[in-house]
């Protein structure tokens, strides 16, 4: 298993590979298999740059936010993740009444930690056709604490 993990980290270093570990990650920990390289890789750390998310902002702080929706619907959820006025994209601020300092603009780096998707969690999904939101428990058979 160690050899396979090293291969995945080197040649399949992508968030798509994280789905291979959703059911068996607790077993890897139980068996004492080294997962440091896996955790340091991009497998569980999805760095993204989406057109729908602003690439620059005048807010230099690092922010940590939860995201419970479907990963593949991420591009539509900037305002769900950052609903506050201070995170309004720069191009929308011009027409807004919020007063902000635009003298300094910083490049934003987004990353999504996929590790919470290993255990049981409440998954929210919007049906692309009916636009109806469905919530259900995912990975009910996986218990990280057992």
């Amino acid at each position: 298993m160690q050899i396979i993990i090293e291969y995945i980290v080197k040649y399949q270093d992508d968030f798509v590979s994280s789905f291979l570990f959703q059911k068996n990650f607790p077993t890897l920990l139980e068996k004492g298999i080294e997962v440091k390289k896996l955790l340091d890789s991009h497998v569980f750390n999805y760095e993204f740059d989406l057109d729908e998310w602003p690439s620059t902002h005048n807010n230099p702080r690092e922010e940590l936010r939860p995201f419970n929706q479907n990963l593949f619907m991420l591009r539509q959820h900037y305002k769900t993740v950052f609903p506050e006025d201070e995170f309004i994209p720069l191009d929308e601020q011009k027409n807004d009444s919020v007063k902000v300092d635009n003298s300094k603009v910083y490049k934003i780096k987004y990353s999504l930690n996929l590790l919470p998707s290993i255990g049981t969690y409440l998954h929210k999904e919007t049906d692309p056709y009916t636009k109806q939101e469905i919530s259900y428990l995912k990975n009910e058979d996986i218990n990280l604490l057992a």
Partner: protein
Amino acid sequence: MGLLLAENKDFIHLSKAGMHVLSLGSQEQRAIKDINGADRMIHSLESCNFLKVDRNNYLVFECSKPDGRAVSVQQEYSKGDGSGEETLFQHLLSVKLCEVTLRELLLFNSLYVCKTLSEIIDIVNDQPDPQVFYKSFLELNGTNMVSILSFDSRSMSYLLSDQFAQHFSKEYPLFYRNKI
């Protein structure tokens, strides 16, 4: 000209090149006979659904070249504002489906008749070019021999070593969801 068979949900496409059969039903695989009377197994498009990472993913079948058939997993998204939307696809992974040769079938058969693990390791290590272990076949339920042999660390250390890095790519991963 095309027609859909009601019983098996097979789509028959007739052209100058001949007749093509596309299985659209839910039955994963079905035995048929080809024009020469040889036994064939026809796999439905839905039989590749196991490759999807998410149930909303799409599968794209690239079958224009007989020696380069591939199935790609993609995610649809829309881009644009109120004036007009454009539909785009994010590529997630691809799997090349190869046609198995008689020599490759004999090699696989040799692996299955091995009585001990060391015999399997000997066969694996004796291959100067282990490309056959990286190929995905419908005969192996869409997976490859690397995944099947993953229980053995010595075979893995040989097959996944950097000396064969020319066969590894991010676009065509060796490890993906399979039916095993």
